[in-house]
């Protein structure tokens, strides 16, 4: 294993490690545009040129492998001169339209200019090469050719990851344009990733664009709930509103990417039919109720026996666990359901046919993904039915059966068809509004963190169920989702030894 010295600090790395990676390990960022860890090495931007002793010319850190005894200088005068030169070259034909550019605030041209350049332009504005601006190239992506630094990250992503090759370079020299291949549209299921990897404002997201300056947004690490893959994400939000999902690196799950459906699924979490207060049916209509009275009524009913509980695979593990505890407390049967629209898109990369984020979580707690829902509905002695995040009316056309249920309790985020049959509706938060865990298709348990608060009086699911359990007089009382998970992990062998701390930001595979 070679030892390299970078900026007077030494590190031993595996054979074949590149200088840029070795520097990263030392916490030294070598500026770069074209290099991306998930793509092949292009070596074209020249921003990562560094001085290496005994080499006559500066070398690109992205494609230079470390050798034993190599000495690298990333802040020497020679390196700095090259960095300034590359930035000056990049900017001579750049429109410098930051005030109207949506990338501002997360733009590597802006950042590196401030970090490495800071010189005045020596090119008069009229001399700049003009190219096409604001060209929609797909449902999600818009292109500004003038801002493009031609790093080829997007081209390589579309060649190497999606194998769809919608974008390419045309013309030569400083007239090179990034553009769609003739007759093509950037509409593959992963198109949004090109926006994430574009280091500048050339490719921006048509959905997010001009809705918020990124420096006003907060970020919360979480997991996408749009399918069973569980791509790691960051939720960008401000004052209770989610603005976008972006993928977060996790080699074991999604590398650096996520699908467009998942990316856009943030909109499903803040629909116009969100439930904001408990509802209890009077003679005909629903009437708003307090949590206390609604839970009291539900607890009283459950104690009467003849209860059944259906929990869907949209529920985090903690909620599944609490429902099982409730079931045990009142002797209710508990069934799981994992429903996906028939024929839903899936592929052999990230998008799974199972559109539920926690089917595997149900299984690990002993609930088959479609275990006994029909039997439960058909049971002659069914007096009370609790449906948790389970829109059976839509999924199963179960309206007639639900009509016959004497007392129906619905816990959900939104007012869906099933709620029309309910006696009590309890508003709960989405997975972006609560602590919790999902177990993905491969059995990886991953942490959810609340980005925003549930609207109105809606409560995180675990909190609502914890309160119901308390109203039933059952012990113990859980004061956090983390405590619920601890209870689950203690009882569920595949999760043995896991806690929110051990799950960390990347999750852990369940045993077995």
């Amino acid at each position, binding site marked *: 294993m070679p030892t390299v010295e970078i900026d007077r600090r030494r590190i031993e790395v595996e054979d074949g490690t590149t200088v840029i990676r070795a520097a990263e390990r030392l916490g030294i960022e070598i500026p770069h545009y074209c290099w991306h860890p998930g793509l092949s090495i292009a070596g074209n931007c020249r921003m990562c040129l560094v001085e290496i002793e005994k080499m006559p010319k500066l070398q690109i850190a992205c494609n230079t492998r470390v050798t034993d005894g190599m000495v690298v200088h990333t802040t020497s005068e020679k390196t700095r001169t090259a960095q300034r*030169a590359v930035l000056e*070259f990049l900017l001579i034909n750049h429109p410098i339209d930051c005030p109207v550019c949506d990338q501002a605030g997360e733009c590597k041209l802006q950042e590196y200019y401030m970090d490495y350049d800071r010189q005045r332009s020596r090119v008069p504005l009229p001399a700049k090469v003009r190219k096409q601006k604001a060209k929609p190239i797909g449902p999600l992506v818009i292109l500004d050719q003038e801002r493009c630094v031609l790093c080829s990250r997007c081209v390589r992503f579309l060649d190497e990851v999606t194998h769809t090759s919608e974008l390419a370079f045309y013309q030569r*020299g400083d007239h090179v344009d990034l553009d769609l291949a003739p007759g093509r549209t950037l509409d593959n299921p992963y198109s949004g990733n090109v926006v994430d990897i574009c280091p500048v404002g050339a490719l921006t997201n048509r959905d997010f664009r001009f809705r918020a300056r990124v420096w006003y947004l907060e970020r919360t690490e979480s997991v996408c709930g749009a399918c069973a893959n569980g791509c790691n994400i960051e939720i960008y939000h401000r004052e209770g509103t989610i603005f976008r999902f972006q993928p977060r690196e996790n080699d074991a799950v999604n590398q650096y990417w996520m699908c467009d459906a998942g990316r856009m699924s943030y909109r499903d979490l803040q629909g116009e039919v969100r439930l904001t207060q408990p509802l209890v049916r009077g003679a005909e209509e629903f009437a708003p109720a307090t949590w206390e009275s609604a839970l009291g009524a539900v607890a009283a009913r459950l104690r009467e026996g003849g209860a059944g509980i259906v929990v869907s695979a949209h529920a985090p593990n903690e909620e599944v666990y609490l429902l099982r505890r409730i079931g045990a407390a009142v002797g209710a049967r508990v069934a799981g359901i994992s429903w996906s629209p028939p024929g839903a898109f899936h592929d052999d990369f990230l998008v799974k046919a199972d559109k539920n984020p926690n089917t595997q979580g149900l299984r690990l707690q002993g609930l088959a993904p479609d275990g006994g829902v029909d039997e439960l509905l058909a049971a002659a002695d069914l007096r009370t039915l609790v449906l948790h995040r389970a829109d059976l009316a839509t999924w199963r056309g179960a309206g007639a059966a639900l009509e016959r249920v004497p007392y129906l309790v619905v816990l959900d985020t939104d007012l869906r068809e099933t709620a029309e049959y309910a006696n009590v509706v309890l508003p709960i938060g989405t997975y972006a509004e609560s602590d919790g865990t999902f177990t993905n298709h491969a059995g990886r348990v991953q942490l959810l963190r609340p980005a925003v608060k549930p609207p109105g009086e809606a409560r995180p699911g675990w909190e609502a169920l914890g309160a119901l359990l308390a109203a039933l007089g059952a012990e113990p009382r859980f004061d956090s989702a983390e405590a619920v998970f601890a209870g689950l992990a203690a009882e569920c062998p595949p999760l043995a030894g896991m806690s929110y701390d051990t799950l960390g930001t990347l999750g852990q595979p369940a045993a077995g």
Partner: protein
Amino acid sequence: MPEHLLLRCRDIPDLRQLDVYLQHGGYAATRKALTTCKPEQLVEMVKASNLRGRGGAGFPTGMKWSFLPKQSEKPVYLAVNADESEPGTFKDREIIEDDPHQLLEGIIISSYAIRCHTAYIYIRGEFARGARVLEEAITQARAKGLLGRNILGTGFDLEVWVHRGAGAYICGEETGLIESLEGKRGYPRIKPPFPATHGLFGCPTIVNNVETLACVPHIVLRGADWFRSIGPEKSPGPKLFCVSGHVVRPGTYELPMGTPLREIIYTHAGGIPGGRKLKGVIPGGASMPVFTPEEIDVPMDMDSVQKAGSFLGSAGIMVMDDSVCMVWALMVLERFFHHESCGQCTPCREGTGWLHRVLVGLEEGQASPRDVDLLLHIAGNMLGTTICALSDAAAMPARAFVTKYRAEFEQHAALGRCPLRSDEPARAHG
């Protein structure tokens, strides 16, 4: 050295026809190589000859061959660089058009030496006639058992394909050529890996220039010692010099490596016409630093020209008399590089255009005195910072022109116009 080796076509009519070529000793070298030499002996022979690449970089050919992996399950390819796109260079064209079998012999022997069974001739698109001549020569050679399966009954197989380029200077760069040959955009590759291990279609590949390969049959017939005895030992052999510009007899001259530049210009090419004086000469194609009249006693071989501050390059000698505006001349060169930069690396993509625009400003009277230093600054930032040598190719002449003819550049900036033109636009010089 006889007058013509590489340019025997000038002495023998219809040498491009196989029967004529055979009558004049053609394919004797191929027969000798394939029947009496082992491949590794040929590699050693070429190494011993000190043959260096004639495309521009002057890399030792035998050493390049020896970089091929000794054991490889992948096929080895030979890519013949017939892209001849360096401005001021027109030597390979004559070999291709008038003596194609000399090139084919070089290809066959070299392929045998490097254990290659498929060779591609990448010929610049504009050489339509050359491509046709090569196709005909290949057909003739195939019919005589000199190409294809079991060549001359030796068991050696070789197919040669002609691939026409589509008009890009950058496809003369060996990895740009390989990309283009693979059907991709002509983008030079980052190195490592080098073509000898990861070349065409990811396989071990040797890229050799036409003139380089044309030397190989002569080395086989007459020996490495003979070759090494022509000109300086470290960069020997017969050499084609392309003389253009303000000389009495422009054209290609086959002379021993190391012939002094002054002799080439004044003796062989007949000197400067019209009683004018020499102002400058580019010794090695558009990308090489210019020499002033005081610098032309340099022997024209790779090491000597490099010692004198320029490069032999493709040996495209461009002669400029005192009617030439050096700002204009540089502007024309930089217009070419601006047009031809592939656009991949930032310094070259942006720098070539910037150089060109500043020069247009100087020539057309829209520049400030600071622009003279700006040219040097841009060129300095372009040197040695890119994947291939095109950036250097644009920067080196800029630096040499501005440094050696600085007064003329400053005069342009101070006058706000080209001092060599009266009222006509500067471009009228050309």
